[in-house]
Structures are given as C-alpha cells and as structure tokens.
C-alpha cells in the first residue's frame, strides 16, 4: 500500500506509545532517503531487541532494516532460532511459522501477492539462521532457488545452534568443539553461498557484518535483483560471541578477523543480474549508490546570493535541466524587494522520487 498504513489515527494519538508515534514522525520510508546514516538520528524499524548484549546479529538486523528500499511494502519471513526473538520487535509485516519452512512460506506469500497485486512491488525477504537455512530447512531453501522464486534469502550464520544452547550445525567449521560434537566437528563447513549459485540464485554474496555500508549495499542489490529476476542469497557472518567465548565488545573484532579467513568476501552476480544492476545504476544511480557515495535519491541545493548575481536563474536552470533528463525537480527562489544587491536565496530540489517539500531548505 503505502506508508499511510503507519499513520496513526489522530483520535488515538494521545494514547499511543512513544515508539509508535516515532514511527510516524521520525522513521524513514521508501519515498525518502534511507540508509545507514539513519541509525544516528532516525527512528529505527527495530524497537530494542531481545538478543544478548553485543550480539552482532542485532547489529546486522539494524543495518538490513535501514537498507530496505521499500519497507512499507516489505514482508519479512523468519524462522525459529535467535532471529525469531527479534522479529516481534520489527514494525513491519513479519511471519514466523515453523522451523525450517521459511522459504516455502515466503514462496507462497510472494506468489499470492503477485497474484493479488499485479501492479505493485512487494518485496519478500527471508531472514533466518544457519540451522534454519542450511540444516533443517535446506530442502526448502534450495527448492525455492530451483523454482526461481523472486525472494531474497538472508542467512545469519553464527556457525552454531545458539538459541538451544550451543550445538554443532552444518555451518560450524570443521574441528570446532560444540555440544553434539564433543570430539570436534568431523566435516567441513557447508558452503551454502556456492550451493546458492549452483541452485540458481541470481546473486550470492558472503560477507561479515563488520562493515555496515557493505551490508546495506548488498541487501539493496539483492532485493532489487530479486524483484526482477529471481532468487538472491546473502550469507552473513554474525558470530555467537557467547558460544565462542568472547565478550560483548569483541563481536566486531571477530568479524574483522573472519573478513580475512572463513568469510573472505565472495560475490557472485549472474550475467543477467549484472546487466540489470548496471541498467539500474544508470536509471536510478542515486538510489543504488546512496550508501556508498555522495549520491542520494534527492538533492537539495541552497544558493544564498545577492540580487543580480544570477542565483535565481541558476536555480531554475538546474531544475529545468533535471526535469528534461527525466528526474523530479522543483526550484523556488526567495527574495524581498527586487533590488540589486538585495539578499536572496534560491532553492533547487532534484530527486528520483516525487518531491512534495517546498520553500526554504536548510539541510542539504
């Protein structure tokens, strides 16, 4: 639908909890610039969380939520495990049904929504742990890839069954001693990111959550590709600091270590997906690269000047040029009496999305 579903009925506003009011007043939604920078001053879509202090998974989830290109039309399907403890805190449509069936449920949701809303884009994103994705749910994960379901699957790989007390998983590295592997794990870590490629994913990336902007970029690319082409997969290292004996402050350090080891970057992009990303970058360059460059989906230009210098004309020229090129653009000058050398201010707004804002612009 639109962000309107998050608007509070004015009659009830005075009894709503502050975090709900904040969602309306200070969260970012699809029509605005969204990204990692929101973490500093915007209302996040995750309200607190119930994971262990310092858990990298909670940080990763925050990065992912700030990176969703259209949260108000995003459905998140999750599974049992540590992740399932966070999902009730997300202010979006989320589903938990069973352990391991997340990609099957997501397939049904995506297909039913495509049928019910043929003219709308609704993103379906699966977020589940390594046990759910690779062990108990492997069949459903891979089958959804075979079927080319247009969903994005994000695996939080903490290399262990953490929520049940630290048992070995298929994703545990060989030799690691965990419960159920008292003599050390005897087989290698399952290379799920490669299975994703051979199973038909259009995009498969392995990385740690050490660099927020990298996570955000990958999430956006994966969702955009899934919308148009087919399944995308992100394998994200979010270590269980508890089970590997680290303190709450050591998660980032562990991820940075693994950036050079088990989680050295892996990125597969199908030819079709690469071409699509390139095309997308051309059409919507500002949206695609918002988290990694200066480009944004909207730009505000403020030109303080003195009458006669040409700032008013410049604002109009800039806006007209953008409009001619197919962008949204608005220019409006402010000035007092039309006297030479009188102070004036001109504003130009350029965007890839409709612009409603008018008048003075003081934050660029």
């Amino acid at each position, binding site marked *: *639908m639109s962000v309107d*579903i*998050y608007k509070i009925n004015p009659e009830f506003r005075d009894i709503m*909890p502050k*975090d709900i009011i904040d969602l309306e007043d200070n969260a970012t939604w699809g029509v605005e610039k969204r990204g990692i920078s929101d973490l500093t001053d915007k209302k996040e879509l995750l*309200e*607190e969380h*119930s994971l262990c202090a310092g858990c990298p998974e909670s940080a990763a989830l925050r990065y992912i939520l700030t990176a969703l290109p259209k949260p*108000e*039309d*995003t*459905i998140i*399907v999750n599974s049992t495990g540590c992740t*399932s*403890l966070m*999902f*009730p*805190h*997300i*202010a*979006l*449509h*989320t*589903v938990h*049904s*069973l352990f391991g*069936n997340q990609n*099957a*449920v*997501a*397939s*049904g*949701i*995506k*297909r*039913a*929504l*495509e*049928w*019910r*809303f*043929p*003219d709308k884009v*609704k993103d379906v994103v699966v977020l589940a742990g390594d046990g759910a994705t690779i062990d108990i749910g492997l*069949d*459903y994960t891979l*089958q959804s890839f075979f*079927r080319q379901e247009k969903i994005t699957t994000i695996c939080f790989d903490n290399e262990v069954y953490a929520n049940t007390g630290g048992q070995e998983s298929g994703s545990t590295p060989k030799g690691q001693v965990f419960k159920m592997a008292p003599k050390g794990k005897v087989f290698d870590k399952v290379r799920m990111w490669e299975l994703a490629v051979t199973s038909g994913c259009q995009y498969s990336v392995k990385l740690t959550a050490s660099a927020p902007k990298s996570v955000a970029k990958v999430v956006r690319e994966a969702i955009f590709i899934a919308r148009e082409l087919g399944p995308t997969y992100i394998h994200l290292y979010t270590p269980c600091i508890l089970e590997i004996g680290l303190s709450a402050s050591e998660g980032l350090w562990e991820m940075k270590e693994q950036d050079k080891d088990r989680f050295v970057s892996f990125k597969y992009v199908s030819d079709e997906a690469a071409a699509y990303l390139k095309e997308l970058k051309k059409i919507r360059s500002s949206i695609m690269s918002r988290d990694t460059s200066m480009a944004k989906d909207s730009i505000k230009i403020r030109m303080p000047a003195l009458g006669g210098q040409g700032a008013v004309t410049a604002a109009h020229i800039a806006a007209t040029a953008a409009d001619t090129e197919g962008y949204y653009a608005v220019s409006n000058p402010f000035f007092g009496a039309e006297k030479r050398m009188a102070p004036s201010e001109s504003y130009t707004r350029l965007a890839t999305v409709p612009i409603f804002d008018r008048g003075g612009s003081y934050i660029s």
Partner: protein
Amino acid sequence: MSIKDMTKEKNWSGQKLVSTDYLLFEAPREKHFMTGSEVTKEAIKRCTVDASVSYPITPQSEAAHLIGELWAEGYVGMYFRGENEFGVMSEVAGCAMAGARTVTTTSGPGTLRAMENFPMWSGTRIPVQLILMARGINSPLTIQPDNLEVTFMLETGCMIWYAENVQELFDMIIAGFTVAEMPDVHVPIVTVVDGFFVSHTRESVMLPADDIALMPYDPYRAPLPPIDSEMPPGRFLRDPFVMKSNYISYATHASWQWEVRSAVDRSIPYARHFLKGLVHTSGDQDAEVVFVACGTASHQAKEANRELTKLGIKSKVVKLRTIRPFPHAELLEATKSAKYIFVPEFNIVGWLDKEVTQSLYGKSEAKIIGRPRVAGGMSMPVEAILHEVLEHINEEKGA
C-alpha cells in the same frame, strides 16, 4: 488472466459471482457421472480460488493435477508443484497468510510428513482448505484406503468434515470455504473422503452449471490482518512471549489455543445450515440397533440396514458429517432409541469408536460396539456388519 479482470458481478474467469446458498441450494443442477477427483476439480472450478500448491501422491494425484489444469484454463489464480508435503503445506500457508483463497490436497504419508504445519495453520487462523483423500500409513508400504491418518488430524485445531460420496465431496468443498472464511470462525477446513472409495469411484452426481462461482474471499474481514502490507502490521509486539517464562506467556498460549477451538465450535450454526445438519440419519428412527459412521462406512451401514430390514430387524444409520466440531448434541439425540450402537470403521484403531464412546459417556445406556473394523485397504462386506449385529442382539444364539 489477471485478478484485475474481476468485477463486482464476475470473477477473473468470467463466471458470474453468486452466493453460497444459491450455488448449493438454488442453482439448477444437471446429472454428471464422475470420480471424486474429477468432482474436486468441478467444485474448485466454482469457488473463485486464488491459489493452490500441489504435490503428487497416490491415490489423490489426479485431484492435485486437475487443479493445475484449472489454473491453465484460467480458473485458479496461482498454482505450482511444491517439493514435498511439508513444503506444500507451508507454501499454501504463505498463500493464505497473504490473503488468498487457497486449497490443496494430500493423503496418508503426505499428511504425516506435513503434520507440523496443521496446528500452525489453525494457530495462524488461515481458512485454507485441505482435501484429504485418506490412505493407509506406512509401514508396510500401502496406497490402499484406510483412514487411520484421520486420528492424527483430530487435535490440530482444524475443522474436519467427512464426505460420504462424490456428491457430498462436491458440496462440502463449496461449503467448506464458506464456513472456514466466516470472520468468527476463520480456521482451516480439512475435507476428508476415503481414498479409492470416493477419489477413484465414478458415480452420478448433480452439479450446477460451471458459469457461476462463489464470491471471492475478502481477507480484510479476517480476524487477523493478512500479511500483505496493505494494513498496519497487527502482529508486531514489543514483548515476544517466547522470551518469557511467566504467567503471561503461559496464559497467552493457552488462551489462543482455547480461542482456536472455540472458533471451531463457532462454525456449528454455519455448518448446520450449509451441510443441512451435522449428522444425517436414515432407516428406522426408533430402532434399537444404530450404526454411527462416517464416510464409506456409512454407505456400508446403509446396505446393512437394508439387509436387516429383510430379516425383520429395525436399524438406523447416523452419519456424522463433521468430526471437528464433534456433533455431541446431534449424536445424543440421534441415538436416544439405541440399545446397541455399532461403529463400523476403515482403520485398525477405531478412532471414531473412541470419539463416540467419549461423547456418549454417562449420557447413553446403549452398548457401544466398535465393530466391524477393516483396515489396510479391505472392503467392508455387508455380511461382516450383519455378523456383528446378529452376534450381539442374539447373544445366546450366535450369528
């Protein structure tokens, strides 16, 4: 074909939209001759179904792939083959959560493989319809009709209806969507028939024309919001109950389980209307020999009733049409005259016998005899029923 082709008068395939009452009770009908699988297709064709996911399994694979044909013909909105029954039941759950009228069908081993999904369905309050064509459970390997699997479904929180023949299956599928989607019910419906005896049996059936169909499902009347990002996310909460081990978490889970079962009970008035009663009786109304049965066993009991009449013995057949909700009041009323209640069944454990015994405990003086029972795909000869009856009513003389 697109959902955008639907108008207030017609669905996307051009069928005129009509009420359930009209479709079931008023529309003129013509005689056809078809199998249970074929009639499943005919029923779904008239139900404005949004979505179906299937997995092949004997003896119902025909029904599952015939739904696929409906999709190809433009009657069903979305359809695909899933990877296995656990996956399929999760996929149809996703469809129903996303606001689609959804149907699937399975049997025996598939039912058991998918089992974890069924309480999740009812707990999620999705009105999905499962057409269950009962078959034996392995091991040893069997594909023959045996309804043991139904006993595993009884406490899943789903409604369970039992159709006796091809005609009842057709009508129950249509009524099933309607009752399951009532806002104060809104739980899954499992429509059961006996495999082969109904799924593969060809018999005459009266069908309305196929240019009319049920009104579409309106997910915005559901007691829980559909997962479609068109409504505020009703399922987000600050304090997940699974995090806690305290009275609030226990009470939340317990009260929801009560609510699911209450929702099943709230289907009773609707089921009475659309099924024309939760039980159907035939034979001598004041007979001391009463058969309580469902599905094919009630057919066999009716044959026994005819033979007993020839022998001068009055008997009555009470056919249960709903198992969940269980028709306690109707059963008690229908067995008032009984001295002997026979419960013939197509399984080895006698799940219906247990249900009947429990329901009538302390309320009926009748002797309840869970016989005859056949299993593993055996037919139930009338002679077997007569033998049980004569043994019991002539205890000294024997059959």
